[in-house]
């Protein structure tokens, strides 16, 4: 009888193979719905066969063969669908001829084109994230729904709509050419980074880890693009602090409250190497620069001895690359560490008119912190109260509540 170990190892393989399988099937049939359907069928078949007969020597090849057989059956039953797909296939070939089939029998890695389809600019931002989680991270629809904190039915509808759009508007499954890549790659990186920040803000390690996994895949698929190194470095160097950044009360801890011995040295080492690669051999990109900032934090023994002048300089570079009020806010906080709270507060007050910062709790919280350090406690408490009303996650709320209580107690 198959034991629980066999079942667990089978599921672990699927986690890794599902994205590969799906991408290869999309390449083969040019249709995401059919690919998803027969990928699920093949995985179900494997769940029956493998625990009983053992995992085949080439699990990917077995899954692909099974899925293709299921697809042929499906197309035989539905002639109209088959005819439609045949037209799709001819036109797809016209746009991007298929590479010669691999000879080693393993699954060719076709995931890159799926990344670009899922992150296509003709899809709404939230649809890009949902599709990427589903098609490339291999999450089920209920899991994607949980990631977004929406009901499963809502997410299912959203995914169906996004897939309908891909099919009807014929958003292609193809990797953009070298001339388009600079315009398209940031969109793909943005999707992965937004999955990470979503998980990070809510202290949800599972979601953050999905993003790390996706960033690793992208890095492997596009090793010559320095920003893929930058993104992976950034998420690793940030994720390295995961165990130290949540307190016993479930609230986030500030950088100067974290026990740095609990930062993950292995991830930091890996991230530093990648950050270096990201910043070598050409002009820096925004992810590489943010990774360098994260690395400076990770390397410092404490907040006081952190290289703040260097961090301010990097924020200047970042602001030149991607000017935004949020970057200006982070720069102001770094200036406050370098030159004192007064200088930082002057910069923050200069940003008061920015619409994007009005409902953004880190802005109010940063002001509250500097006001507190300047001894202006009633103003600080007012700013913390404003921040408290703007928090989006429980972990943030617990932190701001604690800081507010402390200011009120000393005021």
């Amino acid at each position, binding site marked *: 009888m198959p034991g629980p170990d066999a079942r667990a190892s089978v599921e672990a393989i699927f986690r890794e193979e599902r994205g590969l399988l799906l991408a290869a099937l999309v390449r083969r049939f040019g249709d995401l719905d059919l690919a998803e359907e027969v990928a699920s069928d093949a995985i179900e078949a494997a769940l029956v066969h493998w625990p009983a007969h053992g995992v085949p020597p080439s699990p990917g090849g077995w899954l692909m063969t099974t899925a293709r057989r299921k697809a042929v059956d499906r197309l035989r039953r539905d002639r109209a669908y088959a005819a439609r797909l045949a037209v799709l296939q001819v*036109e797809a070939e016209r746009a991007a001829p298929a590479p010669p089939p691999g000879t080693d029998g393993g699954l060719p890695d076709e995931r890159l084109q799926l990344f670009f389809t899922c992150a296509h600019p003709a899809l709404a931002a939230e649809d890009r994230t949902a599709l990427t989680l589903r098609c490339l991270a291999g999450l089920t629809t209920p899991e994607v729904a949980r990631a977004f904190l929406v009901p499963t039915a809502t997410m299912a509808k959203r995914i169906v709509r996004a897939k309908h759009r891909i099919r009807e508007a014929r958003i292609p499954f193809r990797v953009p050419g070298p001339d388009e890549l600079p315009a398209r790659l940031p969109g793909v990186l943005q999707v992965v980074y937004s999955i990470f920040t979503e998980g990070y803000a809510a202290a949800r390690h599972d979601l953050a880890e999905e993003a790390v996994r996706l960033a690793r895949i992208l890095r492997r698929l596009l090793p010559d693009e320095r920003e893929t190194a930058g993104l992976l470095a950034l998420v690793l160097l940030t994720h390295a602090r995961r165990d130290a950044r949540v307190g016993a009360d479930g609230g986030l801890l500030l950088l100067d409250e974290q026990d740095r011995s609990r930062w993950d040295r292995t991830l930091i080492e890996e991230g530093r190497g990648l950050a270096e690669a990201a910043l070598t051999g050409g002009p820096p990109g925004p992810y590489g620069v943010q990774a360098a900032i994260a690395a400076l934090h990770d390397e410092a023994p404490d907040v006081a001895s952190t290289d703040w002048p260097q961090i301010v300089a990097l924020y200047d570079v970042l602001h030149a690359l991607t000017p935004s009020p949020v970057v200006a806010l982070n720069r102001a906080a770094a200036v406050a560490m370098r030159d004192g709270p007064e200088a930082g507060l002057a910069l923050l007050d200069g940003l008061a008119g920015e619409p994007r910062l009005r409902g953004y709790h880190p802005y109010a919280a940063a002001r509250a912190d500097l006001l507190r350090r300047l001894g202006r406690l009633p103003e600080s408490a007012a700013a913390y109260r404003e921040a408290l009303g703007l928090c989006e996650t429980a972990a943030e709320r617990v932190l701001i509540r604690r800081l507010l209580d402390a200011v009120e107690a000393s005021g």
Partner: protein
Amino acid sequence: MKYMLLMNSAPADSAEEAEAQSVCEFSDWMKFDEQIQGAGVVVASHALADMTTATKVRVTADGERVITTDGPFAEAREVLGGYYVIDVPDLDAALDWAARCPGARDGSVVVRPVTDEY
């Protein structure tokens, strides 16, 4: 796959006003039309006369024809000035043509796939 490129621009009361508002010259349109026709992807295309010549017809529930011959069009942010129907492999190719169209600089170009469901 067929796509319709709908070229929209800010409303103008006359051809002269339309020309004054636009950043693209007539020669830009000529050049673009030559390129897209030369690529052999155009199925149909027309430019429309300005909005002052438009007539709107509605039929009410009890069958009465309501004909509106002039504005107010000023409240429309953008009006349709012309279209192309092109046959290209996928949305990326259609978006590429849309981006090269002078209409994308003077206003916007909406890309709509032509459905084969009807």
